[in-house]
Structures are given as structure tokens and as C-alpha cells.
């Protein structure tokens, strides 16, 4: 069904080869965090075995090698999102930290009482709470783009929501709770027509779509490594160079300075101005290895396989009685959120786990989405390229088991 040799790919992911409760592990919780291939695990352990030292500091050989590997990883990230320059790539802990950075360092200094910050109804808490904090700090107001019953953005009022008071549009490219792919390029163009900068939360997009920040023309693009087969604790923020130059540093410390005296400190050049302290060097190297791995397989091929799985799974669930799919947008990636009639998602999660099937149950850090649909939680299966059609069958079998138990 796909140009990829999925069986061979699965060999690269040692964690997948295990039994849970006597059943083969079926890992369908990729939107929460993805698994890591040997290529990433080895890159990290090789770094610690052979090259570990602090970066940008020593003249000695190990420090040189660590610095080279760290900067090579930055260039891989640059290529991955097609940024113009390595100066535009800042390593962070993840999407959450990047959004907080932009909120505090870019928006907060400019925002005043009565200003507005525009997000959407389907954002992850990571793209809600940092903005609420800025609103509290500055007296700005949070505005929300509404959503339809299908889980698509309702853009009928979008033009009116973009006002001369809007300090930023912050929008997820792919919804983690619904799977919806949002038209961020078109939205960015509209915001820019009114001079409004745009942050795109790409946390759920980078594992599934080829990203081109120059084509999107967004001002900020943020994502986490752990959702794209890289380690936890590392992520990246792309930002246009002129914006980064104008922004004050977020955190102070070592590495982000050129010179320090008690009278005056001169900040380092980009991107180091935004990387105070010793960074997650091994994490960055692991992220670089994950990017290499995805490129080797071909991001289009990965996306095509996942999409096929999503289509097959969706069709199977639609054909079952008593299943309600939450999030039926035309454009979707990876995520299948559903409710089984009469059964709370947590009971679903436990029964699935019992059969070795790992799915997420809960509000997915998107409580406004749950409130919109009037539900406390959903069960969510989310696919990665190493998943198989047989694993979709395990999902269906899991649902049948739940329905049997709760009949």
C-alpha cells in the first residue's frame, strides 16, 4: 500500500518490539509523543560516548566537536523548515517554551491596555495560557477565532477579528485534539495585509507535513522534537531575523552575551542571544538525526502512508455502530478522536491498554475544544509512519471489546 517498507522501518524502532499484557504493543499515541529510531538513540549515545563537552567555550577538541555537532543540527533544522539562515533558528525546550518566549519577549513589550491577541478555539493549552499571561500583564484582551461542528476554523468573521489592535495572530497548523489542518498560509497573508505578525504552532504539523516557513511567510514557527521522533526537552523556534534582532533577550546568562561588566552587558549575536545557559546539546543532535531519518524516508512518503492509515481507520469507525468521531474536517492529519456511546473515554483507555493498544484518553490539553463539543474527554488514536493496517484492526478490535463489556 505504500512505497515504504514498513516492516523494515519498524526494525529501526526497538521499543515497538514488545508485548503488553501478552499482546504486541500497538502504539497509537503519537500525537502525545512519538517513538525514537535507533538512528536517533545512537546519535545521542555516540555524542555522550565520544564528543561530550560544553559548546561555544573551549578550545579543546571535544568542545570543538560538540560545537560543530550542535551547529550542524541547527543547520538541519534550518533546512527542515526551509529558513533562510541559521541565525533564525533558536533551540528551545519545545513548543511550549517557544510560545512563552515570543509572548514575553516579542508581544509583552509592545502590548497595551485594549490591545488584542488572536488565537483560535482549537488551540492546545500551550498556545492559550502564555497569551492569557501576557493579557494579565498588559491589559490586552484575548480574542478567539470560532470553530464549526466539523472542527474546522470558522473564518467568516476572521477579517473582523484582525484589527489595528491585534498584536499577534497565534495559530496551530494542525490541531492535536481534532487533527484539523488549518489554512495557516492564507491566514498569515490576511494578517500581514493588516500588518499583524503571525506565530504558527507547528507541534503537530512537523511530524506529518513538509514545512516551508518562507512559503508560509509566518513570523514565528515553533515545534517540539519529541513529537517528530527526536528526544524530549528539545525543540526549535524559527523567527524572522529582523524580529529576533529587535526583540530583547528572554533569559539572561552565559552564552547569550558578548561581554559583561557591572555597568553594561553586550548581548551576543543571533541566535545565541536567545540561548542563555548550556543548551540541550545531545537533544539538538538527536533532533538533527531525526530530521536526517525523516528526509531519508521522504516526508511525502511518510505523510502518504499515515494518511492512508487515517482514511482506513476513519472508514472503519464510521461503519461501526455507536461511534462518534470528533473532528471531521476535510483536511486532517494523523489524529482520530472518537467517543464510544455510553462509555467514558477513560474506561475505553483502560480496556485498550489491556489489549496492548496505547491511545490517549482525556482532554488532550485542549479543554476549550471539549467544552465546544460538550464532552469531558475523547479517546484519541494518532498515527505515525511506523503504524500498520494491522494496528488499525487492533484499534477496531479494541472498540468491539469495549462495546462487548459495556453492552
Amino acid at each position: 500500500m505504500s512505497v515504504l517498507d514498513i516492516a523494515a522501518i519498524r526494525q529501526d524502532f526497538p521499543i515497538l518490539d514488545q508485548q503488553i499484557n501478552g499482546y504486541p504493543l500497538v502504539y497509537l499515541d503519537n500525537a502525545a509523543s512519538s517513538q525514537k529510531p535507533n538512528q536517533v538513540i545512537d546519535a545521542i549515545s555516540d555524542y555522550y560516548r565520544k564528543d561530550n563537552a560544553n559548546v561555544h567555550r573551549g578550545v579543546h577538541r571535544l568542545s570543538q566537536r560538540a560545537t560543530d555537532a550542535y551547529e550542524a543540527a541547527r543547520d538541519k533544522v534550518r533546512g527542515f523548515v526551509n529558513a533562510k539562515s541559521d541565525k533564525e533558528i533558536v533551540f528551545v525546550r519545545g513548543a511550549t517554551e517557544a510560545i512563552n518566549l515570543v509572548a514575553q519577549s516579542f508581544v509583552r513589550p509592545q502590548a497595551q491596555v485594549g490591545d488584542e491577541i488572536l488565537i483560535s478555539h482549537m488551540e492546545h493549552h500551550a498556545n492559550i495560557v502564555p497569551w492569557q499571561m501576557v493579557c494579565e500583564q498588559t491589559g490586552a484582551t484575548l480574542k478567539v477565532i470560532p470553530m464549526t461542528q466539523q472542527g474546522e476554523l470558522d473564518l467568516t468573521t476572521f477579517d473582523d477579528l484582525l484589527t489595528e489592535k491585534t498584536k499577534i495572530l497565534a495559530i496551530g497548523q494542525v490541531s492535536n485534539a481534532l487533527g484539523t489542518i488549518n489554512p495557516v498560509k492564507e491566514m498569515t497573508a490576511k494578517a500581514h495585509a493588516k500588518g499583524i505578525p503571525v506565530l504558527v504552532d507547528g507541534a503537530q504539523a512537523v511530524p506529518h507535513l513538509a514545512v516551508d516557513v518562507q512559503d508560509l511567510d509566518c513570523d514565528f514557527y515553533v515545534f517540539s522534537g519529541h513529537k517528530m521522533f527526536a528526544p524530549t526537552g528539545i525543540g526549535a523556534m524559527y523567527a524572522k531575523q529582523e524580529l529576533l534582532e529587535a526583540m530583547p533577550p528572554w533569559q539572561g546568562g552565559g552564552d547569550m552575551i558578548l561581554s559583561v561588566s557591572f555597568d553594561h552587558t553586550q548581548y551576543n549575536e543571533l541566535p545565541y542571544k536567545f540561548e542563555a545557559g548550556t543548551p540541550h546539546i545531545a537533544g539538538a543532535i538527536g533532533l538533527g538525526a531525526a530530521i536526517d531519518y525523516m528526509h531519508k524516508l521522504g516526508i511525502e512518503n511518510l505523510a502518504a502512508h499515515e494518511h492512508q492509515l487515517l482514511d482506513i481507520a476513519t472508514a472503519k469507525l464510521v461503519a461501526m455502530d455507536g461511534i462518534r468521531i470528533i473532528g471531521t474536517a476535510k483536511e486532517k492529519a494523523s489524529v482520530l478522536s472518537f467517543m464510544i456511546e455510553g462509555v467514558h473515554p477513560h474506561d475505553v483507555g483502560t480496556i485498550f491498554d489491556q489489549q496492548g493498544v496505547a491511545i490517549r484518553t482525556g482532554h488532550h490539553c485542549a479543554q476549550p475544544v471539549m467544552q465546544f463539543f460538550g464532552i469531558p474527554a475523547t479517546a484519541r488514536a494518532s498515527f505515525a509512519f511506523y503504524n500498520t493496517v494491522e494496528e488499525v484492526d487492533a484499534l477496531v478490535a479494541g472498540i468491539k471489546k469495549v462495546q462487548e463489556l459495556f453492552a
Partner: protein
Amino acid sequence: MSDADLRDLYQQVIMDHNKKPRNFREMDNANHLAHGNNPLCGDALVVFVKLNGDVIEDVSFQGSGCAISVASASLMTEALKGKTLEQAEEIYQQVHKQMTGEEADRSALGKLEVLSGVKEFPARVKCATLSWHTMHAAMDSDHDISISTE
């Protein structure tokens, strides 16, 4: 864990109490109440108690949650109605013990023993204990009129 564990967890009694929770109602003349919620999973319930002296004259609950939390709350209301505060405290302690895998006094538990299946499912213990903690909070409040410990 096995399928047998799953059947232990979702016993008929649990399923029945989930479908038809007992004492599932607001209580106008409650003199103790508390809100309990589990922010992680969104389970939320209110426990109402009417104390007459040190006797639990009536106890009820409302809210939403998974089968385990609803059934546990429902079973709790049945078990506590008519009990003295001291008896209720003893039952609370025994329930807690059995859910966390400690040796519990089975005679004190009676029907509540069906909740013991949850000890094989550590991630679900908090579902089963939510109503009990909420009830405890309601009892502990020193106000005699309706209050929320939220």
C-alpha cells in the same frame, strides 16, 4: 494484568451502578457538601450529606465521570446511608486500604469489595477514590450549612 483482571474491574455490580447510579440527585436540605474534581481527566462530582447528630441521614451525589468513578460514588452513598460518622470513617479507611492493595477488613466492606479490582489498575485508583475523598472533605468541614470546600 489479564482479561480476568478486566472482568474484575468491570464487574456486573460496577456496570449496573454506572448505568443506574443510586442516590444520583441534588439534595436541597444537605448540611454538608463538597465538590470533587480530577483536573487531569475532567471527572467532576458533588457529594451531598445530611447529618442528623452524628448519623448520616442521607447522602447523594451528582456529576460525571468514568464507570469506575460513578459506580464508586453510587456504591458509597448506599454504604454510608444510616451510618454514624465513626462507622463511616472506618468504612472510608477500609475502602482506601483495599484500593491501594493493603489488607482490608472484608466484613466492614461488604458489597464495596467489588471496588477492589481497581488495585490492579494503578492509573484508575484515583477514579475510584474521588468520591470518597470528596465525601471526607464534606464531613470534615466544620460548617453546619451548605458549603463548598472548593
